[in-house]
């Protein structure tokens, strides 16, 4: 545990000044700042009053001195979570947020900011302009290091079994960066086209926009990205990696799991051979998914993404011994043989001609075998997606009637609802709560099916209600062809003597590493999961490649962390970032008309247009804020971006604590009659200070509503101070003077502009303040004594101020201005009290930190050893803040010395 003499909480001007004083005295200081830069609010000001000295010119040297002082340890993006006492000293827990940038490498060049694809309000310009998710707070920031704002992993990305950064490619797509989007997807999955066509898109189920009008069409956007890229790049742009490591890996099976594993292994320099029992690669993608859902040329182009890396795919090559592969020189094996065996019903007539299983049927159709189903009645048994595929294929083969029998109700059906709807549109009939009990034939040829009605009992082990036959409800139906789609089994039997299998035939693996009982063999995909989805299988392939790599490098597999993700962003927090959400209806899926669809195997779903993709991706709410588009990684010349960075917590010891957490600006929305937050040309004084500062958000002072240079500016003093209606009865002490300062600066910047200050009374109590006020008056600033009752907005963005003109008889008047500045008051920051454990830091009646002996010991608080500096104790201007910092430094030094001497 690190020991310091003093812990200072908050690195605004008072915190910095206290730290510098104490550091100069030789005390070791830990200075903790919540923001990514020190400097507080002063560094964001234009000038200081009444001298009109440049605020940056005063602050910047202080900031640099603080950061470079040998006795000051600075922690930014950090918070003190808890302070307690132990053995006469303070113990503090300090939490440092992950900023995802290595500060030792970052040069502050801002390239990450320029490349970032996420725009959010810039809090350092008080919302007047955007910043990026990757950002340096402001030009004079200390430390001048980029940080990346992340509020968790976006739910869409988090839901993806192969951790495709869905939010990332959506944010690239909305910027029109479709090629970059493709490359981002390729970081996590090589079968981009197939996923865009046939992924079941768990990302969409988690899209926060689903809580509004409906989720983003994430899969269809991916399809557009793949088509955009493939139409411009019929062949991959890359070849085998230059560096090979000399090790060989065999992949058994070329379905999505096998291809994914092969891709990631080959990228890592392994020599990979894929063994495929079928005539062409792709596994279920090519042989089980009907081409009206996934065209074969898309699969073929996807496969090129793998073979371009030098992966050899040996087709028509069935592997039946893993040990033999080892003998052939492969250092590791990935087993991804899928589920190619169909389950049987175990009823009479299953072996009749005309009764086939779903995988056999779909595969033979894919291979081009022509089933003559014209005018025939086809029965499909089952309720999964494969059953629906088989039924729709049967319609395309000319069957006049296709019936799907499912033994449970529609509610329990595992097939996706949209698939059922599309099948129904194509004329497929569904008979729920019905199941065949026997198939009846003549001369070995199927003629009829006898089915029984079912009812639902209690839930079974799958959680679904168990179907129970209703005795005596049997009925017959003439059928010509039956497809059994009641489930698939793993094709693992050849390996049962070499590796351990589960009872259901799946391969027994370590669920984290996917390593089997034979250490050099890893397994994944349906062979491990049972029938799963394409993207789940790809995720397994990616995981296996990660652990095979570690295995072959001799590393401990249990120690390795695969794909660290932040927890998912909380949807309710995402939605609460905005007061309103514009309704943006989703683009509906476009399909061929049903009567066209069943004519052949043409693709059913039509692509989105580029305009639809831009509109759809712009609906994204940026849940995690950073989208993980990785453009910053590509742009950073110093290789400083580090998405694996984690938050850290430290425990430190200190003899004294200084609280200098500053103040909060009064949120002017709490005075709704002034229209702040509703009228774009009503701004607060801090925003005006930003407009006046050299690092201003615009090129000059402009109206936020339309970019016009204002000509007639009003100030409304005492907004949210001296106001019991908002529970802040005290004077802000600074709003008169900062408004006069701004008025003077505006007179200089906009010589033709009229400036009017609406005030109750001008409090010019400090040295030179009265002269400063008179000077503004002499320059032509108009001062009107009177409270502003309300502000209205005109159509042209100008504002009508209703006020009481006190010095002219108290009459009610209305004045028109083209920009209104609300001179907001200061509010306390009482959250600081929460950090003190087991004792209470007292606040005064207005919730500022209580100075228990203000007259003789202004920095003392109610807690021994805890001192206060700056506006934490109450509103004050900069000179007074610095004075209190001096007082705090002296009192802290006296306290420590006294304590050390045992007095």
């Amino acid at each position, binding site marked *: 545990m690190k020991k310091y003499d003093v812990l200072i909480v908050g690195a605004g001007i008072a915190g910095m000044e206290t730290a510098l004083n104490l550091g100069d005295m030789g005390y070791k200081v830990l200075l903790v700042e919540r923001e990514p830069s020190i400097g507080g609010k002063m560094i964001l000001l234009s000038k200081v009053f009444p001298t009109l000295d440049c605020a940056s010119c005063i602050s910047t040297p202080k900031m640099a001195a603080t950061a470079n002082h040998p006795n000051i340890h600075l922690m930014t993006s950090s918070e003190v979570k808890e302070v307690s006492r132990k053995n006469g000293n303070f113990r503090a827990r300090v939490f440092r947020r992950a900023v995802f940038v290595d500060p030792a490498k970052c040069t502050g060049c801002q390239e990450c900011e320029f490349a970032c694809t996420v*725009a959010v309000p810039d809090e350092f310009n008080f919302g007047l302009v955007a910043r990026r998710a990757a950002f340096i707070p402001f030009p004079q920031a200390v430390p001048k290091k980029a940080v990346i704002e992340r509020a968790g992993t976006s739910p869409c990305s988090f839901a993806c079994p192969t951790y495709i950064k869905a939010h990332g490619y959506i944010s690239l797509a*909305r910027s029109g960066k479709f090629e970059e989007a493709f490359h981002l997807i390729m970081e996590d999955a090589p079968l981009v086209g197939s996923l865009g066509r046939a992924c079941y898109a768990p990302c969409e189920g988690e899209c926060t926009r689903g809580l509004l009008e409906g989720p983003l069409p994430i899969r269809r956007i991916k399809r557009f990205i793949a088509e955009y890229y493939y139409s411009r790049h019929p062949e991959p742009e890359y070849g085998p990696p230059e560096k090979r490591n000399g090790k060989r890996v065999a992949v058994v099976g070329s379905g999505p799991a096998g291809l994914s594993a092969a891709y990631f292994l080959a990228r890592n320099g392994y020599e990979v051979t894929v063994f495929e029992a079928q005539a062409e690669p792709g596994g279920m993608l090519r042989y089980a998914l009907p081409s009206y859902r996934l065209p074969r040329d898309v699969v073929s182009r996807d496969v090129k993404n793998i073979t371009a890396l030098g992966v050899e795919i040996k087709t028509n090559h069935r592997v039946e011994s893993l040990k033999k592969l080892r003998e052939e020189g492969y250092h590791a094996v990935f087993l991804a043989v899928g589920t190619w065996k169909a389950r049987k019903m175990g009823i009479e007539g299953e072996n009749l001609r005309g009764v086939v299983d779903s995988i056999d049927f779909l595969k033979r159709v894919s291979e081009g075998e022509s089933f003559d189903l014209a005018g025939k009645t086809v029965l499909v048994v089952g309720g999964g997606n494969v059953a629906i595929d088989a039924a729709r294929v049967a319609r395309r083969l000319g069957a006049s009637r296709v019936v799907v029998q499912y033994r449970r109700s529609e509610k329990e059906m595992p097939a996706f609802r949209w698939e059922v709807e599309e099948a129904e549109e194509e004329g497929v009939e569904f008979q729920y709560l019905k199941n065949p009990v026997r198939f009846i034939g003549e001369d070995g040829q199927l003629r009829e099916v006898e089915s029984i009605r079912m009812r639902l009992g209690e839930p079974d082990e799958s959680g679904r209600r168990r179907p129970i036959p209703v005795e005596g409800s049997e009925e017959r139906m003439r059928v010509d062809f039956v497809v059994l789609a009641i489930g698939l089994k793993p094709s693992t039997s050849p390996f049962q003597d070499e590796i351990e299998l589960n009872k259901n035939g799946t391969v027994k693996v370590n669920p984290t590493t996917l390593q089997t009982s034979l250490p050099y063999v890893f397994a994944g995909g349906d062979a491990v999961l049972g029938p799963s989805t394409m993207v789940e299988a790809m995720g397994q392939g990616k995981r296996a490649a990660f652990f095979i790599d570690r295995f072959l490098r001799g590393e401990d597999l249990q120690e390795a962390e695969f794909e660290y993700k932040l927890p998912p962003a909380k949807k309710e927090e995402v939605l609460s970032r905005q007061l309103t959400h514009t309704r943006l209806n989703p683009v509906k899926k476009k399909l061929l008309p049903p009567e066209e669809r069943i004519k052949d195997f043409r693709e059913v779903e039509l692509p989105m247009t580029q305009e639809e993709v831009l509109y759809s991706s712009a609906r994204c709410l940026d849940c995690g804020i950073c989208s993980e588009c990785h453009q910053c990684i590509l742009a950073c010349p110093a290789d400083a971006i580090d998405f694996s960075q984690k938050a850290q917590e430290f425990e430190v010891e200190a003899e004294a604590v200084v609280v200098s957490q500053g103040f909060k600006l009064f949120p002017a929305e709490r005075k709704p009659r002034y229209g702040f937050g509703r009228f774009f040309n009503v701004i607060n004084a801090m925003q005006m200070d930003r407009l006046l500062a050299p690092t201003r958000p615009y090129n000059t002072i402009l109206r936020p*509503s339309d970019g016009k*240079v204002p000509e007639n500016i009003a100030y409304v003093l005492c907004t949210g101070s001296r106001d019991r209606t908002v529970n802040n009865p005290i004077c802000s002490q600074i709003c008169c003077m900062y408004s006069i300062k701004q008025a003077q600066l505006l007179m200089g910047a906009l010589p033709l502009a009229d400036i009017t200050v609406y005030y109750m009374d001008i409090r010019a109590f400090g040295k030179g303040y009265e002269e400063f006020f008179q000077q503004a008056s002499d320059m032509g600033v108009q001062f009107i004594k009177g409270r502003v009752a309300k502000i209205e907005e005109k159509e042209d963005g100008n504002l009508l101020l209703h006020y009481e003109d006190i010095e002219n008889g108290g009459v009610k008047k209305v004045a028109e201005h083209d920009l209104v500045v609300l001179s907001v008051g200061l509010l306390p920051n009482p959250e600081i009290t929460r950090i003190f454990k087991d004792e209470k830091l007292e606040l005064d009646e207005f919730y500022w930190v209580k100075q228990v002996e203000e007259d003789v010991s202004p920095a003392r608080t109610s807690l021994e050893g805890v001192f206060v500096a700056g506006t934490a104790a109450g509103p004050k201007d900069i000179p007074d803040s610095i004075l209190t910092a001096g007082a705090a430094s002296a009192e802290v030094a006296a306290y420590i010395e006294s304590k050390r001497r045992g007095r």
Partner: protein
Amino acid sequence: MKDKREIIREEMAMRGKILEILKEGAKTVPEVATALGRPTEEVMFWMMAMRKYGLIEETEEMTEDGYYKYRLKEGRK
């Protein structure tokens, strides 16, 4: 009223369109807003961010109505 965060988020989707409009020559915020068919206050957010990040820059002269014109800036894409 549209939430400021929502307007700002749209910048990325609007950038390409604004750059295309400015290819015709320098324009004020209201002129770009008219060309885009979007409110001036929204366009103001987008154009000021584009200026901040080096995609556009202001011309030297102000129009008689008190507006600056903005043009494409060489260098960044």
